[in-house]
C-alpha cells in the first residue's frame, strides 16, 4: 500500500492543479498577513475560505484523480496487489498531497511571520488540523462516489451536490428548522446536528478555539460548555474521525466487490 501511496502522492505533487492550489493559499495568506496586523483576524478570514474551499477542491481532486487514473488503475489491478492496498493507497496519496499543499501554502507565510512566537499558535494549529481533516473527509467521499459511478458526469454531479449539501444546503435546512421550532429549546438538537456535518463541526471547533463563541449567544454558551470539556473535544474529534472512516470503509467495500 505504501508504494501506491507514494506513487499517487508524487503523481499529484507534480500536477499543475496542485501547484495552483498551493499558490492560491500562499498568495491569499500572504495578502491577508500584509493587510492585517491582527493574526486572530487573519485566522478567521482564512477559516472562512478554508471551510468552503478545502472541501470543494478536495471533492474535485478526488473525482478527477479517480477518473483520470481509471485505465492505469486497471494495469495496477493486474499486478499482485490486493484491491484494498491499491485503492486505500491511492486515496491516502491523494489526501496527503492535498494536505501538503494546504499546509505549505498556509503554513509558510505564517512561519515567516513568526507564528511560533505568537500567542495565536494554538488557534493556527487547530485551523490547519481542521483543514487537513476536511481534505481527508471530502477527497474520500469524492473517491467513494467516483468508485461507485462509472458514468463520469453522474459522478461529478453527485460529488458537487455532496459538497453543496454540506457547505450550503445543510446550513440552510438547519436555520429553517431553528426558525420553525424557535419556541423550543434547540441547543442540544443543534449541537447534535452540527456533529453530523464535518464543515459545521470544523467551523464551531475553530470559533470556540478563537474564543469568540460569545457572539453566538446562548447557543454558543451551550456549545462552549459542551465542546470545551474533555468529553466535548473527544466527541467532536471522534465525529470527524467517523467522517474519515465512513468513506474509507466504503471505498474498501466497493473496491472489493466492483468489476473493472
Amino acid at each position: 500500500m505504501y508504494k501506491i501511496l507514494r506513487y499517487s502522492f508524487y503523481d499529484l505533487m507534480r500536477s499543475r492543479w496542485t501547484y495552483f492550489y498551493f499558490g492560491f493559499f500562499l498568495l491569499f495568506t500572504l495578502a491577508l498577513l500584509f493587510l492585517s496586523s491582527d493574526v486572530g483576524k487573519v485566522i478567521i478570514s482564512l477559516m472562512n475560505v478554508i471551510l468552503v474551499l478545502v472541501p470543494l477542491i478536495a471533492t474535485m481532486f478526488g473525482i478527477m484523480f479517480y477518473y483520470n487514473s481509471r485505465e492505469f488503475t486497471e494495469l495496477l489491478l493486474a499486478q499482485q496487489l490486493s484491491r484494498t492496498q491499491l485503492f486505500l493507497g491511492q486515496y491516502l496519496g491523494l489526501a496527503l498531497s492535498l494536505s501538503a499543499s494546504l499546509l505549505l501554502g498556509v503554513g509558510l507565510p505564517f512561519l515567516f511571520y513568526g507564528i511560533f512566537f505568537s500567542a495565536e499558535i494554538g488557534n493556527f494549529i487547530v485551523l490547519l488540523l481542521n483543514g487537513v481533516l476536511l481534505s481527508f473527509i471530502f477527497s474520500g467521499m469524492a473517491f467513494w462516489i467516483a468508485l461507485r459511478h462509472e458514468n463520469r458526469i453522474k459522478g461529478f454531479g453527485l460529488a458537487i451536490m455532496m459538497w453543496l449539501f454540506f457547505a450550503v444546503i445543510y446550513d440552510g435546512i438547519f436555520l429553517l428548522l431553528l426558525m420553525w421550532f424557535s419556541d423550543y429549546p434547540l441547543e442540544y438538537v443543534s449541537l447534535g446536528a452540527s456533529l453530523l456535518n464535518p464543515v459545521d463541526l470544523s467551523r464551531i471547533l475553530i470559533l470556540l478555539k478563537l474564543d469568540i463563541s460569545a457572539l453566538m449567544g446562548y447557543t454558543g454558551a451551550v456549545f462552549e460548555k459542551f465542546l470545551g470539556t474533555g468529553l466535548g473535544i473527544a466527541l467532536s474529534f471522534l465525529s470527524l474521525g467517523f467522517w474519515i472512516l465512513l468513506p474509507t470503509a466504503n471505498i474498501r467495500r466497493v473496491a472489493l466487490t466492483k468489476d473493472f
Partner: protein
Amino acid sequence: MIDIINLHKRFGKLQVLQGINLEFRDQGKITAVLGPNGSGKTTLIKCILGMVLPEEGEIWVGGKSIRGESAYRSRIGYLPQIAQFPNNLTVQEVIRLIKTIRGEGANEQPLIDLFGLSPYLDKRLSALSGGTKQKVNLTLALMYDSPILILDEPTAGLDPIALIRLKDFIRQEKQKGKHILITTHIISLVEELADEIVFLLEGKIYFRGAPGQLKAQYGEEDLEHAIAAILTSQPKNGHNGHPPAETARLKSQTLQPAFSIK
C-alpha cells in the same frame, strides 16, 4: 496452468459469459481468443486476472483457486486493451513503479531497444503518441519472465516495424514454454501466430481447436472466410444463433479491421 470451470458473468441485464469451461495446460502455446465485439473476450480475460468477479464458476491458476487471491498475478504478464497512464509521470517512472510493485526480475532493456523507446524514457506520458504509449504498455506487460502472458489487442496502434518485432518477440516467448493468450480482430496475426483458436459467441465457446481445423470444418481456404462463415453461420449442423441483420452487423464489426489491415 489455467482452469476455468463453468464461468458465468452478467452486467446488469446483459449475460456476458454463459458457462465457459476452458483449460490451458500446454506449455509453449499461443491461444487466440476470438469473437465479435461484445462476445465476452475481454470479460473472460479480466475474470482470469480477478478484475471482473464472476457470479458463478471458478478459475484456478497454477492449481489454486484465484478467489480473493492476488499473489498469483505475479505469474501473469497482462497487456490491457487501452493504454492510458498517469500524465504527470515519465516513461522511466512508470516502469520503475511497476518494478517496485512486482519486485526483482524485470528485464526491460531488451524491450526498450526492441521498440526504440530510449528517446522517450524521460518524456511525460501525456506527451506520447498512441502508438508509443502502446509500446510502453507492451514493455510493462512483457518485461517480466511470467509463465502466462495475456495480451488484449497487442497490435493496436503499432507501426509495421514494431509489429514485426512484436511478433518475433511473441514467438520467442512461446519457445521459452510460456502460455500466451491473445485477443485480436486482426486475423492475419492469428494465422501467423496462433496454435489454437477459442471462438466466443454470445458468451459461449462456439469453437475450440487449431486454425486448420476451423478452416476444414467450414470448408474455407483461409481463416478470414472461415470466421466469416461462423458469423454468417452455416455450420453443417444448420445451427444459426443470429437473425440475418445481427449476423451482418457482427460480421462487419469483426472482419472490417482485418480486411483493412491486409
